[in-house]
């Protein structure tokens, strides 16, 4: 048994890693090829009108033709996403810090936050456009910030309150003051919770900004671009915009994952990359 297991193992670590990449990457590539191929085939075979679904080949050519425009539109959108993410995250963490210090009010406030978190906050988009003006980055970032704020608040507060009693007792035996308990124990202990919320929030922020841009915004914004192309109607271009918007969501998620690894090196154990 053990002999066979050893024989099946690649000869060097390098080869092993390459094999692992292929093993993990291959299904994704195959799945993407099958889906895109099937999509193209169905659209062409049944002659689906392009306002319902353009074939991927058309979207791809629209993407390459419009790449410069979409990219400059993305820049405006990315700025709003990042601003909203930062505002929402900082706000959420600050309120979580305050709430977790006052046990009496923390339960009701967090209860309300959980309920608000379930509401479709993106519905505020037209209101925010009214408040700040359609071309103001704050109207987009504002919606994103509110969407990020609640999961960050709820998760971070949970992390701050869920401290190991043993750790608390150790800090007590060291005669630590409340500020030290927050900074040295509660805050670092809440980081995994915070990053989970940020990963969720990063994709929410993209949704919030794009949807708010659907309701109007600066002419060079991704959401405005998508809505405009769809109205023309130039659906291949609209889909190309949607494709880039999805990539943006993925990139934001990746960025948060990167930050998580950077800020929590001790979590290497959870990532399974032991040295």
């Amino acid at each position, binding site marked *: 048994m053990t002999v066979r297991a050893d024989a099946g193992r690649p000869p060097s670590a390098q080869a092993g890693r390459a094999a692992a990449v292929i093993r993990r990457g291959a299904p994704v590539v195959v799945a993407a090829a099958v889906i895109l191929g099937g999509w193209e085939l169905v659209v062409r075979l049944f002659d689906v009108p392009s306002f319902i679904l353009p074939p991927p080949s058309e979207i791809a050519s629209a993407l390459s033709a419009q790449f410069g425009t979409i990219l400059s539109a993305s820049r405006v959108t990315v700025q709003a996403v990042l601003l909203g993410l930062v505002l929402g995250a900082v706000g959420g963490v600050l309120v979580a810090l305050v709430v977790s210090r006052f046990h009496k009010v923390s339960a009701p406030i967090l209860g309300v936050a959980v309920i608000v978190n379930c509401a479709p906050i993106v519905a505020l988009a037209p209101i925010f456009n009214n408040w700040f003006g359609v071309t103001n980055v704050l109207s987009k970032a504002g919606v994103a910030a509110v969407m990020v704020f609640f999961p960050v608040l709820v998760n971070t507060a949970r992390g701050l309150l869920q401290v*190991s009693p*043993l*750790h608390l*007792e*150790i*800090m*007590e*035996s*060291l*005669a*630590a003051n409340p500020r*030290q308990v927050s900074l*040295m*124990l509660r805050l*670092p*202990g809440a*980081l995994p919770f915070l990053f989970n919320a940020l990963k969720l929030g990063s994709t929410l922020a993209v949704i919030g900004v794009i949807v708010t841009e659907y309701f109007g915004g600066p002419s060079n914004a991704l959401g405005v671009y998508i809505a405009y192309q769809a109205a023309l109607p130039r659906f291949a271009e609209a889909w190309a915009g949607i494709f880039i918007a999805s990539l943006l969501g993925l990139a934001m998620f990746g960025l948060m994952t990167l930050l998580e690894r950077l800020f*929590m*090196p*001790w979590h*290497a*154990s959870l990532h399974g990359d032991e040295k």
Partner: protein
Amino acid sequence: MPESGIISVHGVTKEFNSATDRSVTALTDIDLTIAEGEFVSLLGPSGCGKSTLLRILADLTPPTAGTVQVNGKTPAAARRDRDYGMVFQQAGLFEWRSVRRNVELPLQVAGVAKEERRNKASAMLDLVRLEDFASHFPWQLSGGMQQRVAIARALSADPKILFMDEPLGALDEMNREHLQAELLRIWSDTRTTVVFVTHSISEAVFLSSRIVVMSARPGRIAANIDVDLPYPRTAATRTTPEFFEKVTQVRTVLHGMLAAGETS
């Protein structure tokens, strides 16, 4: 006068959930004096109040009645002045801190400057022989190594007293005996006063200069047994007739106490 020892306990009683129908009397009428430099073990069956007594000394829970002095002050003052270090059954390391930064924790809380913190932590890691693991994270250490880090952490601020609540309880026999020897070496290097909770008879005999035997329900002190085996004690000590004799003596007291408890 209570100042006769570095720790003195007079008439201490502890009742949990007093005034309710779930009230538990954990300790009754405890008198105990510990002199500076002693290594005292609190030994007794589970639930006899060893941890409770230690936690009262450490000001982690208040006594219901009685007076306690630690280093000539109230336990609260001793805790504020950081006169003691504490080691729990679980290492309780902060998993987001490297080994070195875990050891630095008490110094950081006390506001010691960074440079001095580093030097002190290095010295402590030398003491527990983990200098090569300073930048490791807790999850990269074995249970025994983690407990050594916890001991280094408790000692890093140079406390006069070390409270230990079954610090080796979660370890296997090999590691345990090894760390017992280490602990004696550290004790003789630092000359701290140690109060050590255990329910292992041989551990108590090997380590202690005195064993305080406690009985359960209600928790009280049943006997004080001096362990006059000479220090330094080594692995060889465990095989001497004197060691066996002492273990037998302590066991007899414990069993006699348990038998008395059953008949009463």
